[in-house]
């Protein structure tokens, strides 16, 4: 059987009403029954006592004068009381064997009088009430009256009473049953309808359904609250749906913006690459200009010497045609020719040397070949290519490096890094005509080398230090800065050389860039990776 808690309300209601009324009627019945029982019993006892008193009083004379017939005559009055089964009068004599003095039997009742009156004053056993009453005259006891009364009538009337009560109980339960059925229409049915609506809502997820309201009681309020709640859920649902749609639209928009951004980024990257390339070309162009400028001097001297020699040779030839060539004139010419050819030769040699040295730097700068090279001579060659720029300034360059130090790395990258650093110092760190010292020191650091570049220029404010490696960050955009120099330095160091770069700078205290990179001696096998990445 299910627990009471889990019973449907209909059953609970039924149990409550039927149980309550049944219990009430039962308790009332039990109380009335008990009261009736006590009452009837007392009435019966009183009645019996009265009868016995009368008989006892009426039989005093018979007892006194040994008139058994008279006593029996008196007792025979009990015929009017059909419940008295047996009545016996005993004389108060010493003779215990005497037996009853007079007796009365209800017709059909055969039980004899007990030989002696029972000692009990009153006994109520099974279906017999037994009672003994002394017969007295004044204070003197002259005999005893003993009566056995059948309780059949008493029990019968009680049983009848009980039957009536049971009938009333059944009737009231039936009434309660009917009432509860009727009440369900007003209590259980609205609740069940509400429950049905609730389950329909939760099944269909349709929050526009409303529970019907039948009465304006607590259940009615419940229905109202439920409907209110549904309305709130409904409106919230709609708001949520709207918000979701909005969000979706926004997500789409974002996705579109994102892809646009992606495309823009791609374009930017391409542009950046182009710019880097352009910058490389520009520095190459600067290099070429420097080379041309350097070579221009010996070539110009050679041209002057060659044209002087030509003019002297023409003059010698005219003198020879005119037979005016003198011995001394020839001698002067030969001296001049010797001098000129010496000048031409030495200047051409000088130009050849220059071209030879520049060729290597130019090749390195435009390629990303890895090779083994001595650091100090290569630094000198790079600085040589920067001479045209440095010549216009009052800057001095110091190089501290072991002559024998060799590394296996990318000389082009190193050249470009150093060029950019020097050019940055020239452009940003010093005012025109300000003197200063650029210092480059290289030292081995286990299987790595450390290159420290420093100037003693103006330095940078902290907010610039943090952004100095960002692409397109420049303080001189209008003055020809591309903002890519240090970015290129960062990329070359971290990607091509596989090292790290740090920059320390304070206003008025110059700038120091420290590059730590593998010396490359043990890392030959890693070359292809650098080679492929170096293209960028």
């Amino acid at each position, binding site marked *: 059987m299910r627990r009471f808690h889990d019973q449907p309300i209909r059953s609970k209601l039924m149990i409550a009403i039927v149980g309550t009324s049944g219990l009430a009627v039962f308790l009332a019945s039990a109380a009335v029954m008990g009261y009736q029982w006590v009452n009837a019993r007392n009435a019966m006892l009183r009645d019996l006592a009265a009868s016995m008193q009368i008989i006892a009083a*009426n039989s005093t*004379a018979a007892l*006194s*004068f*040994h*008139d058994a017939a008279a006593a029996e005559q008196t007792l025979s009055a009990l015929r009017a009381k059909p419940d008295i089964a047996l009545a016996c009068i005993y004389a108060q004599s010493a003779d215990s064997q005497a037996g009853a003095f007079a007796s009365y039997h209800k017709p059909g009742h055969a039980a004899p009088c007990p030989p002696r009156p029972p000692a009990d004053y009153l006994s109520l056993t099974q279906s017999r009430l037994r009672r003994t009453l002394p017969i007295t005259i004044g204070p003197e006891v002259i005999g005893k009256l003993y009566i056995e009364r059948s309780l059949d009538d008493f029990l019968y009337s009680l049983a009848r009473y009980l039957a009536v009560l049971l009938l009333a109980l059944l009737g009231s339960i039936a009434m309660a049953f009917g009432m509860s059925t009727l009440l369900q229409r007003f209590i259980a049915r609205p609740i069940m309808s509400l429950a049905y609506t609730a389950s329909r809502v939760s099944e269909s997820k349709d929050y526009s359904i409303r529970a019907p309201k039948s009465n304006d009681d607590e259940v009615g309020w419940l229905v109202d609250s439920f409907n209110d709640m549904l309305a709130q859920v409904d409106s919230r649902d709609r708001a949520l749906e709207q918000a979701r749609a909005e969000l979706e639209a926004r997500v789409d928009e974002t996705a579109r913006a994102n892809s646009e951004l992606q495309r823009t980024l791609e374009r930017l990257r391409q542009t950046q690459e182009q710019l880097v390339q352009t910058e490389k070309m520009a520095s190459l162009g600067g290099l070429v200009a420097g080379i041309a400028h350097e070579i221009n001097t010996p070539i110009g001297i050679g041209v002057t010497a060659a044209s002087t020699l030509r003019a002297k040779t023409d003059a010698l030839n005219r003198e020879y045609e005119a037979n005016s060539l003198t011995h001394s004139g020839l001698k002067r010419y030969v001296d001049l020719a010797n001098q000129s050819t010496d000048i031409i030769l030495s200047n051409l040699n000088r130009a050849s040397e220059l071209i030879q040295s520049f060729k290597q730097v130019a090749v390195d700068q435009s390629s990303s070949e890895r090779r083994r090279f001595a650091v100090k001579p290569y630094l000198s060659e790079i600085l040589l290519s920067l001479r045209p720029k440095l010549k216009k300034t009052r800057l001095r360059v110091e190089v501290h490096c072991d002559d024998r130090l060799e590394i296996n790395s990318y000389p082009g990258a190193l050249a470009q890094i150093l060029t950019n650093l020097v050019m940055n110092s020239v452009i940003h760190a010093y005012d025109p005509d300000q003197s200063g010292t650029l210092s480059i020191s290289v030292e081995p650091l286990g299987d790595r080398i450390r290159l420290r570049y420093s100037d003693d220029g103006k330095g940078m404010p902290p907010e610039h230090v943090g952004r100095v490696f960002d692409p397109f960050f420049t303080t001189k955009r209008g003055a020809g800065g591309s903002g890519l120099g240090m970015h290129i330095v960062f990329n070359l160091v971290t990607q091509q050389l596989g090292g790290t770069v740090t920059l320390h700078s304070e206003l008025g205290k110059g700038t120091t860039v420290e590059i730590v990179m593998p010396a490359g001696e043990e890392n030959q096998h890693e070359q292809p990776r650098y080679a492929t990445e170096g293209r960028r």
Partner: protein
Amino acid sequence: VKSQTDKTQTGCLPPGASWRRRVPAALAGLALLLSQPGLAQSDDLESRVKAAFLFNFTKFVDWPPESFASASAPLDICVLAGDPLAGALDEAVRGKSVNSHPLNVRHIQGSAEARNCKLLYLGDSGQARDLLIALRGQSVLTVGDTPEFTRAGGMIRFLLVDGKVRFEVNRSAAEQARLTLSSKLLSVAHAVTDGSGG
């Protein structure tokens, strides 16, 4: 009737201890009776029953209150000296009292002593008639054995019915003596007569 009775009572004072002289004779008679077994047995039982009845009569009879000197004055039951019932009567009433009147048995010789009796048992005495006449108007319950006792003005007469002691009552005699007989007593009486008697 009342004033007459009072006069009679005051006129006949009991003669003191005259009955005491009769006691030895009564005892001798009793002894004589007891010495004859068969007869004595039956007579003895009858005597005891009659003695008990005499005692019981006092319970069912109301004397006029003024006939007692006080509320606790003794109630005298008188028997003729020498009557065979005397012994049984002594035994039956010894130490008893009725309505707070202690019972007292007196053995009397004649009517002179009978005036103060409340109950007088005359037995089958020949002088019954004289005594009844002498006590007329007195509140004395008279009991006797002779068949004509009630007709002669006696109030209660013993008789044997089927071997049992019964009694008949002369109600008018009792009424004349201003005695109230209980209806209960009348209900157990063998017969109730209203004869006025001699």
